């Protein structure tokens, strides 16, 4: 983290206060649809996410797909998830961010050490 400057001594507590509330709001919205934060990471927008999705166990992929289908269904019916189901949700439980970080570290290492790109695909 960067060295705390004079200004950040004032802005940092404000930022933390806002961050906690923002995270709670996002969590509430995700719970309504029964999604996790990592489900929002889109492989069609980021090749690193696509690569990371290839590395996680198949069980996680299947659960992710089912959550996304459930959320699409709820959205189509203009409904939210049941109250007792919403209580069970864990929107910030991560399954993808570690592998995503690993992919980004590898790409960075590849760029620094001068290896050729592992694959060369463009997003449509």
């Amino acid at each position: 983290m960067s060295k705390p400057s004079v200004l950040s001594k004032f802005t940092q507590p404000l930022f933390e206060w806002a961050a906690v509330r923002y995270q709670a709001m996002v969590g509430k919205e995700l719970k309504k649809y029964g999604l996790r934060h990592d489900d929002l990471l889109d492989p069609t927008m980021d090749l690193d996410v696509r690569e990371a999705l290839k590395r996680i166990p198949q069980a996680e992929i299947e659960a992710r797909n089912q959550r996304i289908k459930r959320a699409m269904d709820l959205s189509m019916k203009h409904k939210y998830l049941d109250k007792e189901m919403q209580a069970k949700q864990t929107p910030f439980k991560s399954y993808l961010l570690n592998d995503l970080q690993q992919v980004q570290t590898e790409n960075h290492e590849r760029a620094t050490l001068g290896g050729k790109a592992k694959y060369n695909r463009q997003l449509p």
Partner: protein
Amino acid sequence: MLRTALQQSGRLLSDSLVAPRAACAVQSRYGSSVALPSNEPGFFASLFGAPANSAPSMREPLTGVETPPEVTYDKAPVTEMTTLSNGVRIVSENTPGPTATVGVYIDVGSKYENPQNGGVTHFLERTAFKDTAHRTHLSFTREAEAIGANFMAAGGREQMSYTATGIKTNLPQLVELLADTALYSKFTPYNVQIELAAMARELKAEAKPELLVNEWLHQVAYKGGLGQSYLWNGSALDPEIIVDFVEANHTGPRVVIAASGVEHKALVGLSERLFADLPATAGQPAVPSQYEGGDHRVNYPQAFTQVLLGFEVAGGWRDVKNSIAMSVMVTLMGGGSSFSAGGPGKGMHSRLYTRVLQRYGWMEECTMFQSIHNDTGLAGIAASCSAGKAPEMLEIVQKELRAIATKGAIGEAELERAKKSTVSNVLMALESSGVVCDDMGRQILTFGQRISVEDMKSTIEKITANDIAACAAAMLKSKPTLVSVGPEALSLPPYAEVCKAFA
């Protein structure tokens, strides 16, 4: 007289090296057109300084540089061994030369596998030097390139080795990279899947019978550990299975670090900390192997029919005298392929050449093979011929095996030639520092100590014709192992007849 001749011919080099001032005088006398740059600072150097591009003269030694002491190798290097507290053994020999070879030798192989994790040693050999807990594959490659080192992994039925060769001064990097790969390789589900898919493709492309005969020989001959196929057979290998295997078998007493061309203290200092994490347990025991012999025939459409007839060499390497007699016997029998350019030292005077290949022109190949392991081994004759002659070929192979087991069948001259040839093969192989390192590592794993070159030489020289005949006779008492591949494989005489021929 030589000096005057040189002077007169105008070659002043030797003079100028001895006395620079005299050279100047001589130059002016002969008017040499070569502008020898003189590096003595002129008058103006003190005012204007020396020119920027004046390099030191290459004709005088550099001032202020300490030349290293001249190296003399009047004593043969000694093998030194240290055992760490967790059982890891470190052995090294300070062979002369600029390169060093370091290896990690582990007592693990396909002998320790069961049907659930079959092929895991093959997998480990293929994924050596890839992702580890501390560095990615790319990092490893770049670090290896930066020091210009060669890395090699070789797996087998009983021993696994990871070796590195490089310049002596890079010893710390070599040892660290080897320790990382041997102990901390990472097996993520993703990488394991990619590697298994690559292995499946390769095995499908290369699964030709001529390459698989050695596998079949062991699978037929042995029941248990050594009968387990080394090559991966397509079974599912999860990361948990692989990690369990590695953890169960990579233990202190089963790891040996060998190096040639390094100082022992330096190596111990480096390895102590890197290998200190290994547990001091004995690890998982090997699956016991039982020799049973047998028959395996494959009717494969190829040009030649191949036959391998083998027997058990009881005692393996650990019966040192017998295994050395076996090695001399293999040199004595020799053999090879009929399409051979020949020449001195090619072995065309060995028994299988003079008695078989030179008499029967239709024989494509006839050679003695051996595959000796720690406690047991296989040895026999492999032959191959073109169509129509397979039963006759099998007869000839049986005759040769019975002949070598007969007392008095080996001549004095051919025995001496075989012994000298074996000794020179051993000595010539040990010229390479890589082979010295391998020799030390594998011998410590098998014997617990290294048999010195002098001992080996004297044992070879003491072998008599009766020793070889006895060794062969003992071998022939076991049940034969017959593997045949080719269009005529099924038309060979039945296994029972082959057994009767040696009864």
